[in-house]
């Protein structure tokens, strides 16, 4: 891998070399960070975009596959196998492999990230639905709900905590994996991290890495909030 083009893209160190001895010494420079924070705005927003879009797409597909497999049980094995196998493809390889098909940019990044969410969400949908007490389904059927009404009025709502737990893990994982999306030319905080990992500028690693962690935590809180909103009954206890 040649370092030259990457340095040209984001070579903080060379640009600012004359400004302070801290930067020259590759220290942890608060001064530099405060001056350069706005440099991270675009990569951060790109990162958020990549994560939200790919998780949303991945979620819809994985839930659809999960509901399908819940009805046609024989699909569970093959789908678990395929999604699991895809998950083991190293992320660097995944983003390069998708480029011949989808070109460079957001498309291969989003597709790749969405693929990684499948195994987690799909498995949680299946276990969540399997965990619905069978007397609930029996009562629903006994009262005359059609199979679809049973699924959407009883089974899915009761599996929701498990499904959303899958969504939380998938979001956190995707925030991390999205750093590699830079390899597909999709930008994001990975751009900064990869540059700095080559040049090893500590202040940059701290800021970019910190933003990734912050984003993961923020997304987790958002999904948690959605979960609490959608499942008020889980907090209901005998007074």
């Amino acid at each position, binding site marked *: 891998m040649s370092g030259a083009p990457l340095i040209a893209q984001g070579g903080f160190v060379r640009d600012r070399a004359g400004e302070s001895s801290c930067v020259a010494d590759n220290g942890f420079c608060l001064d530099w960070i405060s001056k350069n924070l706005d440099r991270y705005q675009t990569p951060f927003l790109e990162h958020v975009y990549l994560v939200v879009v790919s998780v949303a797409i991945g979620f819809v597909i994985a839930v659809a596959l999960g509901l399908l497999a819940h009805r046609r049980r024989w699909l569970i094995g093959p789908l678990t196998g395929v999604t699991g196998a895809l998950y083991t493809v190293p992320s660097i390889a995944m983003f390069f492999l998708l480029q011949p098909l989808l070109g460079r940019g957001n498309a291969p990044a989003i597709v790749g990230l969405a693929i990684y969410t499948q195994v987690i969400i799909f498995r949680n949908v299946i276990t969540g639905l399997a965990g619905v007490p069978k007397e*609930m389904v029996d009562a629903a059927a006994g*009262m*005359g709900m059609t199979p679809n009404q049973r699924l959407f009025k009883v089974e899915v709502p009761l599996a929701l905590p498990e499904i959303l737990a899958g969504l939380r893990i998938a979001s956190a994982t995707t925030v991390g994996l999205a750093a590699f999306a830079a390899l597909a030319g999709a930008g994001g905080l990975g751009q900064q991290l990869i540059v700095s990992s080559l040049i090893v500028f500590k202040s940059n690693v701290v800021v970019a890495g910190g933003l990734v962690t912050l984003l993961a935590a923020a997304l987790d809180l958002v999904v948690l909030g959605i979960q609490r909103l959608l499942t008020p*009954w889980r907090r*209901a206890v005998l007074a």
Partner: protein
Amino acid sequence: MGDASDRSSAEPLEFREVTKRYPGNAEPAVDGLSLKLPAGEICVLVGPSGCGKTTAMRMVNRMIDITSGDILLGGRSVKQRQPDELRRNIGYVIQQIGLFPHRTIADNIATVPALLGWKKDRIATRVDELLELVGLDPHEMRDRFPAQLSGGQRQRVGVARALAVDPPVMLMDEPFGAIDPINRERLQNEFLRLQAELRKTIVFVTHDIDEAIKMGDRIAVMQVGGRLAQYAPPAELLTAPATPFVEDFVGADRALKRLALQRVRDIDLWSVATCRAGEPTAAARARLTDADLDIPMLVDGERRPLGWLSERGLTGERVRPELRSPAEPIVELDDILRDALSDLLARESMYGPVVDAGGHLVGALSIQAISHAIGSAGSEVRSAAERVAGDAGESAGQE
């Protein structure tokens, strides 16, 4: 909506040679079951575990397919009806109750009305009406989740939910099975009182013979292999068990169990001579010769028992209020015979005064009269709902 106007009347139910074979099982789970249940009565399916009670019940609403034979509801084969449509018109209560934990109590009760597309305000009115019917406060309960209710309250909500669209038939599979004995007794009584009012046709499954005797207008005793051993009203089952299996299943204490089916007013009481303090002794002695019991009861001006008079009370010219023993235990006409016997035994007494709801003496209940009642098969026995309906009047009378 006034429920009197759109109340569907109960329908008769008939099993005709119904057989169920589960694939892979050599023995049928239900074998040629035939029985008729008149509209508005409770039929209890009872028998040991695995005898096919649940299977038989679940074929009624087609939760399980009938292998051969037929089930007629209101004269119509259930096989000719769409399963979902059929089920919406049959109340369904299972042992685990099956309330949906993610729905409020109101939404749970509204399950079937919502499926039928009722308007919002009609549903809301009906939910409140049903909560009151099963003895729960609508304002307090409506918006709670099932997790916020006790077991007994959940059970009541389960019954309310099954009654939501006023179905002509209800299926109940061990509905009180998961409830402690004291609350079970209460819920059973409440349910019978409700049934006295609603008069649904009910198939009730239990493995507890005491519950069967208490709840059933008719009892179908099944034995393993899904065969019907006997189908009879409770009293007949107890006095004339058809087979050794039934005899064994109803238990060695079946004579005592029969007492639970009768009230004091249902048997012949002994007549008692009464006397008042100060009245001429001669008159009192004259009355004594006609009475079954040779000891007079001292009463007040309103025939309320004060105590058994001693021999010395009758020695003077006028009756003197000298008692040999207190008027205990006082038995009421509406008391269950079993409870009355228990009172007598507890006081080591051979007989006790019987009073009506106003407390006036009407006779004496003796252990002898009770054993006579146990022996005679023909003595009157009330239907399950009537037996408990009497309790309401009794407690009202005491207040």
